[in-house]
């Protein structure tokens, strides 16, 4: 609890947490707060020349290329972006932690083999691998999340691995094993708890990465498919209008950056507090 309070005393972390809370709440209660339906095309949503309407007036953030309310699409888009981000990152954290902890504890051949495999995955450029996978499997929301998870677990696996190796060497592990504890008990009851702070830090930082990757995939047209709004595909749909109607790109763009920034700042604050040796260093 005190750690949590210390984190909140940092202005950047507090602001980040507030922003994340606002976006998450908006995403959860989207139907209640969204002024219009996200997919409805309004007759007065386009100017007489057929151009999107600028922010202000009836449509607070203006309308998009099809005359839909941008604010409503952004609120529902937050749902998509956060859902993909959280599922993708959740899977990545679980897979990465499992691989890292087993490889770190078992050492020997199994461990070496698992770590060589993560080295192999490191050799693939994340975005290109995700693009290939997304191109092969025609993407749904879940597939996009799984594709992102498949390229994102590697980092966590490596960090967890190096910590698991050093913890496995400690005396209390030898003592527990000497008392006859099974491997799975040592792993889950004695090693995992020591790794939780690290996992928590990377789980927070990881959401920033997954949100960005989802937005990028959607921007390239192979992520979440329209009409389902996500922050990335709102930009993808409207990019041809960005010279005449820049708000259609820059409002969702700012939201993506702020959300990723918030998770990064919060993750950084967590790392500083949970691992004092890193404080102020990185």
């Amino acid at each position: 609890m005190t750690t949590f309070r210390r984190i909140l005393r940092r202005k950047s972390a507090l602001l980040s947490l507030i922003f994340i809370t606002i976006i998450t709440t908006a995403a959860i209660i989207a139907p209640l707060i969204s002024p219009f339906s996200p997919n409805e095309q309004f007759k007065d949503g386009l100017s007489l020349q057929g151009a999107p309407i600028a922010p202000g007036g009836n449509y607070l953030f203006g309308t998009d290329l099809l005359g839909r309310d941008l604010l409503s699409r952004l609120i529902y888009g937050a749902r998509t972006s956060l859902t993909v981000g959280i599922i993708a990152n959740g899977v990545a954290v679980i897979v990465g932690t499992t691989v890292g902890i087993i490889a770190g504890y078992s050492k020997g051949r199994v461990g070496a083999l698992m770590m060589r495999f993560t080295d192999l995955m490191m050799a693939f450029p994340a975005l290109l691998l995700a693009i290939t996978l997304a191109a092969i499997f025609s993407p749904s929301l879940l597939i996009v999340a799984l594709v992102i998870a498949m390229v994102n677990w590697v980092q966590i696996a490596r960090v967890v691995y190096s910590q698991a190796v050093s913890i496995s060497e400690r005396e209390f592990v030898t003592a527990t094993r000497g008392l006859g504890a099974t491997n799975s008990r040592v792993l889950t009851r004695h090693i995992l708890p020591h790794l939780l702070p690290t996992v928590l830090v990377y789980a927070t930082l990881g959401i920033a990465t997954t949100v960005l990757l989802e937005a990028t995939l959607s921007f390239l047209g192979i992520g979440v498919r329209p009409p389902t709004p996500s922050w990335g595909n709102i930009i993808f749909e409207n990019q041809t209008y960005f010279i005449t109607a820049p708000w259609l790109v820059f409002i969702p763009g700012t939201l993506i950056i702020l959300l990723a920034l918030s998770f990064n700042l919060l993750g950084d604050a967590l790392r500083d507090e949970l691992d004092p040796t890193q404080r102020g260093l990185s």
Partner: protein
Amino acid sequence: MIGYLSRRIAQSLLILLGVSFITFLLLYILPADPAVQIAGRSATPETVANIRSQLGLDQPLFIQYFHYMTNLLQGDLGRSYLQKSEVSSLILSRLGPTLTLMLTAIAIELLIGLTLGILAAMNRGKVVDKVLMVLSFISVSAPQFIASILILYIFAVKLGWFPIGGYGTPAHLVLPALTLGLLGSGWYSRVMRSSMLDVLRQDYIRTARAKGAPMLRIIRVHAFKNAIIPIIAMIGLDIGIFMSGIVVVESVFGWPGIGQLAWQAIQRVDIPIIMGVTLVSAIAIVLGNLIADLIAPFVDPRIRVN
């Protein structure tokens, strides 16, 4: 030393072998039957079977992989059925623009990143440091496509200083290279700052300061060479991020490199080209890391001894 080098080279070869196997699986096994794709919708089952045996798709998996590897080692990355052209020649023709863009961007990000990192370390805890670190966080949180569009909007559309996109003159190079360089610099400035702080804590720096040497001289003569060591390994790692970044940046700025090639292939679901670019990028990443590791002992004598 020789042992270290040969071990690293062997390791890289093994990784490349694994990379080729995964590419092979993704290219030949996962997608819908390539024979059907080539034959088109109106083809008879007989035609499909013919194409399948021509491509060797009716052979056992390991024989297919053997063929794939034999071709790969001869520089044959397969064929794009949609473009009716060899993937390797498509990639080769676009390698020049990509390398130009990459090298310029790396130069920009090192220049900005290292300068700001040192500046932050020298002013640790002060306002300059805090502002710079927030900026570096923004740069790692900004996706390439938003940064590209923003930079394009400000410098090409609003100010009209640079062309909106395309290739040919040095002016065309500025904006895409600046986008990649600015985004990458945040990461470098963070690592440079923490590495510099580490070095500045050392005893020999205190001695130098006690002798009365000015701060800038200490950084330049005593600290810089030691603080730069982690950066070298980072440039190797960075190539992976670059290869991803160029897909977005090249497609936004209309830069005719392999990133744009990949992006065009994505739009047509031309999997052989996407895989070709992925494979080439993976080779670039493995080579980049290998070269960084091979240079490290020359920069850092401690590695030579161990």
